[in-house]
């Protein structure tokens, strides 16, 4: 049995939406190099719709695949929908991740949320802070 599903391998080998948006409306970076994965999401938002999204990831195969899949899932979608994207949905869309790699899908969810929060902050849009978990206090990376 292979370590990863065909879908994970496809997104890992041919990651979608790779790159940078120079004039992004929202940018979110989560993780740290110390624990081996960093995800950075760039969003271009117009009229409440995510018109473009790019990512950069330093990490393992499932981290790269999770970023790729997550960007695909929010591209062209309203901000409200992107906000409700869960790590579970990302993992399911990838036909599952090994249990000890579920963390990678969590990072993808959090990176998107962080980028959306950045967008709200930059544009003075009010929001419920409870929507945005504090990634930095997550125990996973606290080495």
């Amino acid at each position, binding site marked *: 049995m292979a370590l990863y599903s065909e879908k994970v391998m496809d997104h890992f080998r041919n990651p979608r939406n790779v790159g940078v948006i120079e004039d992004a409306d929202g940018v979110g970076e989560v993780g740290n190099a110390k624990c081996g994965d960093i995800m950075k999401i760039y969003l271009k938002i117009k009229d409440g719709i995510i018109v473009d999204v790019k990512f*950069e990831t330093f990490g393992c195969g499932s981290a790269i695949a999770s970023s790729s899949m997550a960007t695909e899932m929010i591209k062209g979608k309203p901000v409200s929908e992107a906000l409700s994207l869960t790590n579970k949905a990302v993992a399911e869309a990838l036909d599952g991740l090994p249990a000890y790699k579920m963390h990678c899908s969590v990072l993808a969810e959090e990176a998107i949320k962080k980028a959306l929060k950045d967008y709200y902050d930059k544009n003075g849009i009010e929001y419920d802070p409870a929507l945005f978990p504090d990634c930095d206090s997550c125990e996973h990376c606290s080495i």
Partner: protein
Amino acid sequence: MIYADNAATTKMSEAAIKRMTSVLNESWGNPSSLYSHGQKAKETLEEARAEIAEAIGAEPREIYFTSGGSEADNQAIRSAAAIGRSQGKTHIVSTAFEHHAVLHTLEKLKKEGFEITLLDVHENGLVVPSEVEEAIRDDTCLVTVMYANNEIGTIQPIKEIGEICRRRGVLFHTDAVQAIGHLPVNVREDNIDMLSASAHKFHGPKGVGFLYAKRGIRLTNLIEGGAQERGKRAGTENVPGIAAMAEALKESVAKIPESTARLTAARDTIIEGLRQIPHSALNGDERMRLPGNVNFCFEGIEGESLLLLLDDKGICASSGSACTSGSLDPSHVLLAIGRVHDVAHGSLRLSICEDITDEEVDYIIKSVGEVVGHLRGFSPVWRDLLSGKREFIL
């Protein structure tokens, strides 16, 4: 496929398979049985023991067959600890980058009241003999230092360490799993009291290994039962595996001069080639290393994705990244030589076999360069390094 993970396991040699098959077919009796068919298996077993003893300069009665390197490590350390405790000596000296079979056994002993000193292995991955001497105390019962490191391939000054231990009257064990069959090892000349080895690292089968224990050392049983292995390791012997191990060892040892020359040349070409990748560094001493071992860190990338992409290119390799171990920490070996977490995650180990061709060497260099470049292309860490937001470590 280019198999460059020989430190993980090796392909069995034709001769070892042949001998194993012949034992399975013809000598399948129980060596403990009295009738001639059983005694034939006993002869096979003792023949293998003599061959193995000869290959490392030991006496046959000093060889104990085990299920592999881990069991041999456990038994050697447990035995020395039991001897030590009976004399009121409960201090053990080892190193920070031993195999987990050694480190975890030492951790258990610590809970049982032993005091453990782990020596620094320095940036080059080498133990300094004078530091062993300084670490030995009146209550030291064992020094255990691996012959060659399984990740970075550094070869320790075993003979000097053994000499110090002998002079100070302390038992000396070495985990020689990566060395046996690859380096000339002689337990007498190297002043070794106990040594662990595993067959599948030198083209023998998996699930079989041996412990060499110098005559007079009282071993502690890990497995109780029958009187096999001079009463020190119960259970019907894995005769086909043991015979195949002996065959593989004979063959490997005979080939050492030839394979060392070939491997060293190929290894050094790969090292030179990978050095051309910017912000990369060789892990472990350049000269005092196993002839087939290459271990690098590449800044700005993570090891698991590197391995997966190399696999796509038909190259089997390994990494010390956290993601390949299932834990959050990268390899304890890389941390022990002072690599910080950030770069330890981006490590690659290539452990080659002497049948590697010049074309394969070139292909490996080219492929690693491509894959590292590809991953850096969308790594936020690499971007930050390039823009000066983050400082280069390598």
